[in-house]
Structures are given as C-alpha cells and as structure tokens.
C-alpha cells in the first residue's frame, strides 16, 4: 500500500467518526487525561489573570494606592467609540500587521524552498536563518538603528558608494519610517516562519513529488498541486500566529521610532500601554484590550474558516 494512492483521505471527514461512535466516550476520557496536565497551570496563571483583566473593562478602575472603583457597565465602551486616537492607531496597527505578516510569509517561503532544494551552503544558511532569534528585542532595535543611521550607517554608505542617494533618513523621514520598520519586522519574523515552513516541507513525503514528476508535472505545477495543499494547515497556523505576534510587538516599533515620526508608527498596543500604565486608567485600557481581542479574533476566525473550508473541499476530491 503506497501513499501515492492516498493523497487525501478517500472518504469525507464524518465517516471515521461514524465508525467509532461507540468508542466516543472512551476517546473523550483519553482526551481529558492527555489534556489535564496543561489545564492546571493554564487555569491559574493564564485564564485567571485574563478573566480578572477583562473584568476590569467594565469598571472605572485606576492604578492607585487605594483603588476605589465600581462597576460602570459599558461606559468605557461608549467613551472608546469616540476616541479618534484609538481607532487611528488601530488602522496603523492593522496596516503594519498585515504588511509584515504577508511579507514574512513570502520571504520565509522563498527561503524554506531554497533550503529544501539540496543546494550547497545549506547548513550555514539554516543557522543564519535563525540569527534573528539569537537577539533579544533591545539588541535588534539598537542594531538596526545603527544600520539605518542617516549619516553614520552602512546602508547609506553602501548606497552612496554605488551612486544611489546616500543620505536618506530612513527612520526619520515620514515616508520611509513605516516601511523601514516593516523590514525589521520581517527580519525578526524570518526564523519562526522559515523553520515552521521548512518542517512542513520536510513532512511532505518524497513519493508525492516523485509521483507528480512521473506524471509529467514541472516545478511550478508540483508546487501548486503537491506542496501548497500539504502546507495549507501549517501556513494557516503560522500566519495567524505571526499576525498576533506582529500585532502585539510594540516594543520593537517603540524603540526604533517611539511611535514617530509624526505618529506614523503609533500602534494600538502602545496606545493601551500609555492609557494603562501612564494614565493609570486600567479600566478604560481593559476596555480597549477587549475591543482589540474581539476585532482580531473575528478577523482570524474569518481567515481560518476560509482555510479549513477549502481544506474540507480539497478532502472530498
């Protein structure tokens, strides 16, 4: 029984469950035993603070020595609806996030494919692909500030030496600041995306590729017919993870530009930080957090549902 005949499950998804209907309860008990160890630290250290944090969204809590706060219902949310700064930062945040996520995926996919092609220098490149992982955020920011320096940095020096303008103020100019920061975001995200995609590529059995080329498929056709469908679930999970991480990575943006120039890189998480920690309005900030969660989860749900729906459609083939 070779795998060539079974690129996808021959029967649609519901069938296996019907077969094992009677073993459903045993399966569930097994599932719970497998999941139990995770639950305790999660409940105590993650769910509990999360619930407490979210609950504050409905109060007028402040971070002071003798907090005296009470339930205020949806007051925070009505106030938020009129807060132009917040919605502006949300727009910037989404542009930044989508931009970085899409570019990360493209760049990492290219690299992963290259690393899977049996070229020389593979070992070196694999280690280099992980370099951004070896640096804490503070180091990444300082390093890229040095590179982008308008009058003392290697980027401008190089551009100048080959005849291109060598005095662009990358992080200080209004038009180049956001793209420059996006490039750094992509650099930072290369390792996890490349590693994930490479592992996914390695998981595709060689037989599938061989079968496809025996059938006369060229490189591109093999990519679209074999590689892409197998990678789909992995792409979906790493893209949604990247989306969340990028959305939350305000420390990188902040150190590089402090939200400037001209407020062009003021992302929502930074905005919430200011409201919670600087203004002490933790209740109002929690309301912002809750709104963010709803929006982001909704966006991701739409994205993932479309992925899984296509997956199931593919299964039926």
């Amino acid at each position, binding site marked *: *029984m*070779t795998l060539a005949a079974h690129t996808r*499950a021959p029967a649609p998804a519901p069938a296996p469950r019907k077969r094992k209907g009677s073993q459903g309860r045993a399966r569930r008990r097994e*599932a719970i035993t497998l*999941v139990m*160890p*995770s639950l305790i630290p999660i409940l*105590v*250290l993650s*769910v509990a*603070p*999360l619930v407490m*944090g979210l609950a504050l969204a409905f109060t007028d809590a402040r*971070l002071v020595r003798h907090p005296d706060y009470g339930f205020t219902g949806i007051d925070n949310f009505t106030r938020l609806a009129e807060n132009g700064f917040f919605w502006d930062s949300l727009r910037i945040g989404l542009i930044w996030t989508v931009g970085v996520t899409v570019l990360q995926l493209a760049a990492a996919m*290219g690299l992963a494919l*290259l690393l899977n092609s049996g*070229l020389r*220098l593979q*070992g070196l490149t*694999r*280690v*280099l692909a*992980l*370099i951004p992982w*070896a640096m*804490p*955020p*503070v*180091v990444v920011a*300082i*390093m890229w500030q*040095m*590179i982008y320096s308008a009058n*003392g*940095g*290697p980027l401008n020096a190089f551009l100048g030496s080959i005849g291109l303008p060598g005095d662009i103020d990358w992080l200080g100019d209004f038009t180049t600041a956001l793209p420059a920061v996006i490039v750094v975001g992509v650099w930072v995200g290369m390792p996890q995306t490349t590693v*994930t995609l*490479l*592992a996914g590529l*390695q*998981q*595709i059995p*060689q*037989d599938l590729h061989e079968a496809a080329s025996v059938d006369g498929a060229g*490189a591109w056709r093999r990519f679209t017919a074999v590689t892409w469908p*197998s990678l789909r*679930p992995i792409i979906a999970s*790493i893209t*949604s*993870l990247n989306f*969340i991480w990028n959305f*939350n990575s305000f*420390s990188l943006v902040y150190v590089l530009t402090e939200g400037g120039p001209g407020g062009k890189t003021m992302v929502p998480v930074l905005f*919430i930080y200011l409201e919670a920690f600087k203004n002490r309005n*933790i209740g109002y*900030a*929690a309301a912002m*957090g809750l709104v*963010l*969660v709803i929006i982001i989860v909704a966006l991701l749900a739409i994205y993932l549902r479309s992925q899984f729906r296509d997956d199931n459609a593919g299964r039926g083939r």
Partner: protein
Amino acid sequence: MTVRALLRPAQYLALAAYILFLGFPLLWLISASVKSSGELNSLSVNLLPEQWHWDNYADALDRQGLIHSAGNSLVVALVSTALVIVIALPASYVLARLKGKVRAAGVGWILTSQVFPVVLVILPLFLILRTLGLADSLAGLTLVHTTYTLPFALWMLQGYVTAIPVDLEEAGAMDGAGRWTVLRRIVFPLLMPGIVATAMFSFVSSWNEFFFALVLLQSPENYTLPITLNMFIGGEGKVALGPLAAGAVLAAIPSIVFFTLLRRRLTSGLMAGAVKG
C-alpha cells in the same frame, strides 16, 4: 532546457541575498563590539575597526553579572521548553483530531490569551504569583514562560498534526496496533521536525523574553539575560554601544550553538522510510 539551466544559478543568487539580509546585521554588531566609543560616535563607516578595541568585552563581562544572568536564562529556557513539549504534545494531538466543544474552547483560549495585551494581565498575574510565593523567583518565571508559550506550541503542533493524514493512523490501527502504539510508532516520528521546530521556538521565546522577567524579578541574582543587556541603556537614552554590542555578541553564542546542534533534526527523511514498508 534554458529555464532549468538558469534555475540553479538563480537559486544561488537568491540564497546569497538571503544570507546577506540575515547575516549582515550580526556582522555589523560584531564590528561594533570591537570599536572604541570614539569611533562608534564618529561619522566613519567601516566594517573593520580603525583600532581593535577588545576592552568592550572585558567591560561587558565586568558589568552587571552577564554570565550569571545568562545561566539563569539558560535554566529557565531549557526547563520551560521541556515542560512545554511534554504538555503540548498530547494536548495538541487532541486539539487537532477532536472536533467540537473541546477544540472550540481550546482555540478560543489560545487566541484570546495571545491577543489580549500583556500589560493588562500583569498585575493580577503578579498578585497570584506572590500569593503562591513564586514572585521574584526563577521557578515562578519558568512557570509563567511555560504557560504563556503553551498556546503557541499547541497551535503550531496541531497544525503539524493536521498535516499528517488521518488514514496513516487508521492504516496502523487496521494492522492491529493500539492507539498508543500508533501514536508512538507512526505519528510522533512523523511529527519530529514539527516537534523540533516547536522546541526551538519555545526555547527562543523564553531566552528573549523581557517584560515578564522585568516585572516579576526583583533581586539582581535572578535577572535573566535580556534584563542585564537592557541595563546597558542608561538614563536620557544614553547607550554604552560598544559594551552592549559585545554583551549581545556573547549572549548570541549559546543560541547559535544550540541552533547548529539542532539543525540536522529539522530534516525528516523518516517519513519516506516509515511509509514505504
């Protein structure tokens, strides 16, 4: 014919571009780490320093207990990675294979806990840890890292599990193997690249993590590496660039060693073998 002839050189060209993009910043950092502060604060742009200034390394090691905090980071990262893998492996399998409410609750928690800004949970978390006597301790930080890396690990692993066709397991089951044997003999080996990827990611998350460490740790002997490196930045935005670069280079070495050791494991090759027979 011409397309194929061009393919290899084009691939090498692309590879070179990637190597430059990924490696140059590190090269520049190393270059900065051996320059004197006079040169770093001048307008000169040279890869090689005008004068090799090794003092930065001595300075970095002298300050603030860099090696000790690296040791702290290592312990926290290794232990939390081990915990994450041990917990996430079975749980992600359940998450991937089981549909329905369990999965929905799991996914819901995963997404919410990662999107909700950390600044809003840090205070309740601190209070909880202090009640448990775990504030200002590496054990507490390890638990926090484990808990907050779990969602990502679960999410990533369930993606890999989903990519393994269900009928492989059914084939095994039909051959008479029990569920546990199926998991052990068929699923986990296929999952190996995914497990390695998740382990690397978990290690790195913990190694580089800054905010929890900053807020939850109070005694300097508990500080982790990012905290120590951050202390090279002084008030008024003063940065001791040379020593910071030296410290960063030193700090990057363990990670690079770890990656070099693990890079072979990212190769599967097991899949083809397991299925052909």
